[in-house]
């Protein structure tokens, strides 16, 4: 029991050390490890011997710069994790590279951290990446920063040099709204103020680096925030004889318990938490921030991975397709308008486009450029993004974890951002594209009215929506045959011929499927313009998909026959088939509704 009690108190904190190239980050960490006896036995001697063998001076940095190219170039290329323990807690220290070329690696390290050490060379003073890193740290949301003014030996341990840097850099951070926890004068190579107080700087009365690190506090605010659970997956291991349907994911913020009324966004589906599922752990009825959980629901509602689970009695998330964000770009190719990217936010992935660049910031000078229309590598931009379907998110100022995202370009994470606010969707890229298409549509000399006269009916896009096995295809084919026999121009399009995803369960919301919807809509626009009664089947179609198809098919209309597709609300449906869809009665019901909507010329029926 005492064993358990001591272990319970063990906490771990992730730190990152950043700053301009060669200002001594790796040396600080190497020295910290050496002076606190944290290195494995023999490690220091091994590195010293290696230096001697290669006749080069010993560097503490070699304790961390383990890659061949790092040692040969005397530079950190990628962030190293090192493990370190004090009386107070365990640490993972991420030793980040300072060279601009490896900024993406620095970001990778910094994004893991809860607090940062920022190193500035006393002799060189504040450099470009001292500022850029300061900015990135604040953008990534780190609130605790200690600044180490290093290489004090090179400036004869003079207080005035230190004070000057403190003043200048405080001002810079002040513009970002960041207030460093402390400034510490150090000489890492010599060990001054690293693990023990330096006698050479009696004028400094603050903590050593070691003391500073222990004085950081672990941010614990996530529990008090509204409940947010991005649904990573929904498991049902039926083949293994397990019938539980478990909604799973990692709780970002807040708490929830059995019996709570919850809502999934963006679908808006509601239910009640029935149980908390765990393996090899005591039963529980609650879930909390940071836990990787499994939950079952009291009703069989149909939700998909990627949705955001929230509590009905708390702040609702934003749902929309447009937002303003701060984005840091790391891609080799610039971020441009008119190109499709993949956005990852929470557990969802969605196609996205750059709607506008409002300003681009030079993060080392904090100067904004309002004329630039793209983001180059290492730019930080305030931009508008538009997604191809609605997503659920929070403003980063409200709830940080659900207000941040990454952008994937060509298989790579190329951008990282935080959401400032939702923006209305009037005049979206999509709407503009449709408007543009219609504006410049080149027609022949036969007008839609001419065609209607000749064919005795309007062009119409008829969608038969239903689950696999519902008989949707047979109904669609029968309707085609019936209309054809009546002398109408009609065509049944077998959806799997081109768009397999649109006929499958579980693909809803995927980027591939969204793309297929878009192509189908364009195709329908052409077929209905040709005056056809264009018929196809879809599975798992939601109202957003449907609206998209409607818009793409404009100026012609869509006609929905539903066999009880669970994703579809009743308001969108033209005909609901409740009886056996494979009967003539079902076909008649469809045709009657088409008739009453005046699709056919009066005399033709």
């Amino acid at each position: 029991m005492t064993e358990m009690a001591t272990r319970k108190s063990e906490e771990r904190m992730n730190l990152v050390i950043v700053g301009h190239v060669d200002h001594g980050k790796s040396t600080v960490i190497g020295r910290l490890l050496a002076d606190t006896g944290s290195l494995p036995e023999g490690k220091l001697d091994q590195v010293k011997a290696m230096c001697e063998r290669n006749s080069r001076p010993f560097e503490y940095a070699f304790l961390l710069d383990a890659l061949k190219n790092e040692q040969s170039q005397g530079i950190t290329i990628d962030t190293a994790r090192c493990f370190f323990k004090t009386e107070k807690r365990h640490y993972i220290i991420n030793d980040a590279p300072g060279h601009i070329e490896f900024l993406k690696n620095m970001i990778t390290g910094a994004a893991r951290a809860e607090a940062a050490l920022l190193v500035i060379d006393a002799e060189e003073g504040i450099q470009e990446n001292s500022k850029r890193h300061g900015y990135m740290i604040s953008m990534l949301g780190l609130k605790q920063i200690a600044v180490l003014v290093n290489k004090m030996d090179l400036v004869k341990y003079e207080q005035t040099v230190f004070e000057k840097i403190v003043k200048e850099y405080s001002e810079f951070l002040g513009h970002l709204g960041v207030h460093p926890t402390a400034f510490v004068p150090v000489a890492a190579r010599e060990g001054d103020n690293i693990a023990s107080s330096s006698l050479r700087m009696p004028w400094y009365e603050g903590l050593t680096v070691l003391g500073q690190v222990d004085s950081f506090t672990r941010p614990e605010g996530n529990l008090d925030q509204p409940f947010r659970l991005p649904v990573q997956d929904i498991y049902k291991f039926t083949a293994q004889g397990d019938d539980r349907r478990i909604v799973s994911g990692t709780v970002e913020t807040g708490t929830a318990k059995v019996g709570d009324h919850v809502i999934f966004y963006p679908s808006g589906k509601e239910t009640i938490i029935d149980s908390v599922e765990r393996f090899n752990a005591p039963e529980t009825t609650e879930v909390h921030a940071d836990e990787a959980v499994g939950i079952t629901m009291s009703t069989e509602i149909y939700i998909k991975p990627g949705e955001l689970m929230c509590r009905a009695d708390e702040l609702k998330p934003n749902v929309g397709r447009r937002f303003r964000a701060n984005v840091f770009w790391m891609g080799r190719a610039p971020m441009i308008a008119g190109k499709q990217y993949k956005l990852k936010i929470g557990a969802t992935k969605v196609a996205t486009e750059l709607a506008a660049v409002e300003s681009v910031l030079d993060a080392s000078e904090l100067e904004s450029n309002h004329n630039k229309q793209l983001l180059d590598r290492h730019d930080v931009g305030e931009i508008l993004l538009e997604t191809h379907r609605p997503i659920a998110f929070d403003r980063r100022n409200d709830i940080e974890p659900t207000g941040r995202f990454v952008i994937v370009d060509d298989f790579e994470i190329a951008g990282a951002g935080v959401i400032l606010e939702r923006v209305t969707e009037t005049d979206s890229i999509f709407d503009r594209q449709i408007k543009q298409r219609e504006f410049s549509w080149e027609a022949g000399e036969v007008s839609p009215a001419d065609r209607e006269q000749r064919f005795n009916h309007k062009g119409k896009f008829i969608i038969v929506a239903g689950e696999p096995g519902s008989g949707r295809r047979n109904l669609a084919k029968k309707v085609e045959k019936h209309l054809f026999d009546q002398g109408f121009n009609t065509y049944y399009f077998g959806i799997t011929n081109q768009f397999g995803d649109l006929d499958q369960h579980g693909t809803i919301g995927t980027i591939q499927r969204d793309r297929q919807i878009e192509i189908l809509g364009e195709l329908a626009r052409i077929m209905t313009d040709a005056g056809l009664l264009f018929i196809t089947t879809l599975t798992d179609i939601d109202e957003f998909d449907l609206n998209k198809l409607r818009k793409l098919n404009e100026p012609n209309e869509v006609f929905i026959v539903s066999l009880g597709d669970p994703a579809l609300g009743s308001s969108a449906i033209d005909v609901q088939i409740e009886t056996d869809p494979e009967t003539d009665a079902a076909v008649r019901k469809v045709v009657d509704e088409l008739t009453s909507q005046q699709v056919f010329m009066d005399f033709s029926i």
Partner: protein
Amino acid sequence: MDQLDYLEAKSIHILREAYREFKNLCMLWSIGKDSTVMLWLARKAFFGHAPFPLVHIDTNYKIPAMIDYRDRMAREWKLNMVYGQNTEALKNKMTFPDGAIDRIACCKALKSEALKHTLSGEWTRWRMNHETGEYEEDSNKEPYTGVIVGARADEEGSRSKERYFSPRDKQSDWDVDDQPPELWSYYKTDFAPGTHVRIHPLLDWTELNLWEYIQREQVPIIDLYFDQGEGTRYRSLGCLPCTLGVQSTAKNVDEIVEELRSGKFSNVAERSGRAQDAADGNSLETLRRDGYM
């Protein structure tokens, strides 16, 4: 939540992300403590199930008890158990124990090469048939595009620089000087055809964390890690000819935890018993660039 709770939650998140994103996913199970904890974490993540194949690279020089333990656990936990091997090299006796090549070349042949071709499906995979209890040739020859591996950052230098989701190119090579960014809980799950991704759920765990977790969860671990009364035990498991035991009288998990926390190993690196690491300063980085686990 304490340290172990955070580590567990993060690993589970990574495993679930891998399971969702990779259609052809497998987990490398070396039978050692790391990958056994990883397998345990998978059963946590998937509520008692391990919903992907467990792949073991059998060098034929593994300590025999390891194979017994592997098959016993595979039956007990109903694992989808698969193994692969460099049959050519073994047939032609092109190994270090046969005196034909040095340790590093042997590792390359029996581990790296065997792994590469087993993952790609070019070489035969043997899969456990749970009805007969025997291994049969696996009819699935599709390449695995996601491979879950139990590497830890504290093991050695190049591993300290790894990503949770780490891409490998068509030759299985690791471009350690140009790794993709990884932020918050967003990982590299998009990859070009022909390439694959290594997934590392244990990157943030230390050796001590693992044993504390084994202790807390009572994970059934192979008893080669415990002193059987001779005053030696294994601290890391590999091939019999290249893995040395360590002097230790730790007879159970509690004693190992004590030994690592404040006892004789609290300051001694784990891989000190692996002969192939000593050969040149960067041998492990070299091996890993070429696809070694």
